[in-house]
């Protein structure tokens, strides 16, 4: 099949989902009201609560939720063939992610823009709220470990990207200063920043940098992971405007440019998909597609992380309640389109089926490396970019995303440690530096504990990360469903995805548990067990809450009938 057809089908499907299904959900289920006084107006303070233009809000929501995860997930999951990954991304976006993201904004908007975590406490119960904190901590822990491993692999596989990747940090530092001191206006700075970044990307292939294979017995992979965490620790301690803010901004611009280039190249060159539609000849050790597909692709189909962004910052800036449909649902569509681009890159970016099979020789292979090399080939054929430069460009795009997420993730994890320090009266833990040290060491423990001393196996926890992310989405869906039941509205729109997610995640956890037991990886076995307990707990909470509400509704009806 031709990639153009796949692209049109996918983008068309998601767009139709936005036009029809999201309207149905917004009007009939959430009943978004244009006259509702949103928290952004009610509590407007110029700091947290600021009514914001819906396109700007969409841009910032989309770029905050899009990261390396919607690239890594599909790039691993195509091992089962492109049809399952494609279907899950498209239908997941339409029926799961869009409803979830828009719903999270709506739920938060109707509750004074409180975060989903706090809402869980109010709407579902205190027990669920503590559960929420645990799941968030696990997600952050895994995301940092996984992304550090992914970046290290990319830097080793594409030495040409080392200079632009680290150079981008200096570009961001300089841009931050220029904007902060108001030396130039933002438009000019953006253009200069993008030019500087692309100059670095073009220069990259002529100055490739590789680390020595072993320094004091530490492998190059492990050295990169240590360097990355050292960087992330410092970056997470800096004020946000120094590095994180300009970096995020450049990443956002880069994301749009990258997506346009990639889709444009597909349209021009029209490559054929070389990967099989359904891979009947999966390599040995590949787990069963159901349920693993649904946890391998989390971001891009449905991801709990979006709920945190939606209820954390987005809902505080919503100008009109009806904007939730565009910002939330279309934000999910944006992320789905990034995953779709990945699927095309990793299935159509190879010359022959044998080449593809050589990359996907066992489960967990492929990943971002396949995205970079496949995407680079499409860019070369489509827009005539030199293949080295194209590879560097895509690597930089993926690494910058993952790097910013690590920076933010470590910062959030530090806050959690500081909060715990406050709750349990551990004075030293409330300080920034020791809390960061704790966060970094827990991540390093996971990165090396999961994959051995050379840190090469960190991606082994990828499906586990997806599972935990789905559980977070499940908790958010539970909050939305509970609100809908309380309002006496149809709940199947969120209840069915919730049930599906719970069944698939618990099923996947059990399969992985057996896998870890068989290879004797007790570290991951314990981690899996922890997540499993959380999953079962969520399932029980959901059942109990819904049963209680049904009982209440029945009693209410009975009393009103008596009247």
């Amino acid at each position, binding site marked *: 099949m031709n990639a153009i057809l796949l692209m049109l089908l996918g983008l068309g499907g998601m767009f139709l989902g936005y036009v029809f299904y999201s309207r149905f959900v917004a009007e009939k289920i959430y009943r978004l009201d244009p006259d509702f006084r949103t928290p952004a107006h009610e509590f407007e303070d*110029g*700091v*947290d609560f*600021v009514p*914001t*233009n819906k*396109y*700007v*809000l969409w*841009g*910032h929501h989309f770029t*905050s939720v899009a990261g390396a995860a919607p690239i890594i997930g599909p790039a691993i999951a195509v091992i089962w063939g492109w049809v399952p990954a494609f279907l899950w991304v498209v239908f997941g976006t339409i029926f799961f992610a869009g409803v979830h993201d828009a719903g999270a904004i709506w739920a938060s908007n109707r509750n004074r823009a409180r975060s989903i975590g706090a809402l869980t406490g109010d709407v579902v119960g205190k027990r669920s709220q503590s559960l929420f904190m645990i799941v968030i901590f696990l997600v952050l822990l895994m995301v940092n470990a996984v992304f550090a491993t992914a970046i290290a692999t990319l830097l080793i596989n594409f030495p040409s990207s080392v200079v632009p990747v680290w150079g981008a940090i200096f570009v961001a530092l300089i841009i931050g200063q220029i*904007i902060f001191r108001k030396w130039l*206006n*933002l*438009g000019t700075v*953006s253009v200069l920043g993008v030019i500087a970044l692309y100059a670095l990307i073009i220069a990259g292939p002529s100055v490739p940098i590789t680390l020595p294979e072993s320094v004091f017995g530490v492998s190059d992979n492990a050295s990169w992971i240590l360097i990355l965490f050292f960087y992330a620790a410092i970056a997470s301690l800096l*004020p*946000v*405007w120094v590095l*994180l*803010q300009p970096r*995020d*901004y450049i990443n*956002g611009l880069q994301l749009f440019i990258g997506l346009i280039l990639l889709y444009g190249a597909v349209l021009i060159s029209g490559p054929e998909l070389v990967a099989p539609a359904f891979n009947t000849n999966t390599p040995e050790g590949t787990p069963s597609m159901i349920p693993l597909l649904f946890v391998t692709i989390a971001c891009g189909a449905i991801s709990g992380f979006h709920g945190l962004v939606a209820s954390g*910052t987005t809902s*505080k*800036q919503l100008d009109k309640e009806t904007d939730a449909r565009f910002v939330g649902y279309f934000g999910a569509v944006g992320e789905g389109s990034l995953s779709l681009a990945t699927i095309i890159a990793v299935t159509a970016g190879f010359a022959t089926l044998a080449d593809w099979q050589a990359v996907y020789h066992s489960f967990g292979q492929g990943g971002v490396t396949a995205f970079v090399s496949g995407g680079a080939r499409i860019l070369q054929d489509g827009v005539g970019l030199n293949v080295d430069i194209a590879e560097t460009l895509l690597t930089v795009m993926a690494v910058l995303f993952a790097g910013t997420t690590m920076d933010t993730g470590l910062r959030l994890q530090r806050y959690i440690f500081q909060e715990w320090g406050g709750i349990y009266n551990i004075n030293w833990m409330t300080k920034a530096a020791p809390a960061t040290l704790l966060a970094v060491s827990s991540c390093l423990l996971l990165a090396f504990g999961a994959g051995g001393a050379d840190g090469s196996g960190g991606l082994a926890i990828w499906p586990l990360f997806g599972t935990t992310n789905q559980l977070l989405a499940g908790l958010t869906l539970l909050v939305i469903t509970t609100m809908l039941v309380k309002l006496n509205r149809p709940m199947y729109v969120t209840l069915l995805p919730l049930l599906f997610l719970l069944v698939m995640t618990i099923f996947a956890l059990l399969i992985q548990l057996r896998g870890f037991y068989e290879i004797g990886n007790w570290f991951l076995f314990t981690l899996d067990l922890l997540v499993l307990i959380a999953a079962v707990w969520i399932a029980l909470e959901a059942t109990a809450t819904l049963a209680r509400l049904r009982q209440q509704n029945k009693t209410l009806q009975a009393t009103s009938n008596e009247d």
Partner: protein
Amino acid sequence: MKIRAILRFLSRANQLAQDYYNAPYRAAVARAQREQEDLFMLYVYAELMGIPNPASYYTLELQPLLLEQFHDWHLRMGMEHSPFDEFRCC
């Protein structure tokens, strides 16, 4: 006429870019700024609390200027009324 339209478009684009740059971090930056201002407040009113202030000759002049923010400050610091006996607020 055309040039004016282009300029208007550019300034609008710049405005949107500015929003896009600032929206996600507005809260964090404002909070950091407020923290520094709170510390400065403490410095300016230090002597009233019995903390010796070597620069009081200068900070005394600032007190009336910062008076407008005084109410918000003591509320934020968790004090319902002014902490100073000789310096009432609300």
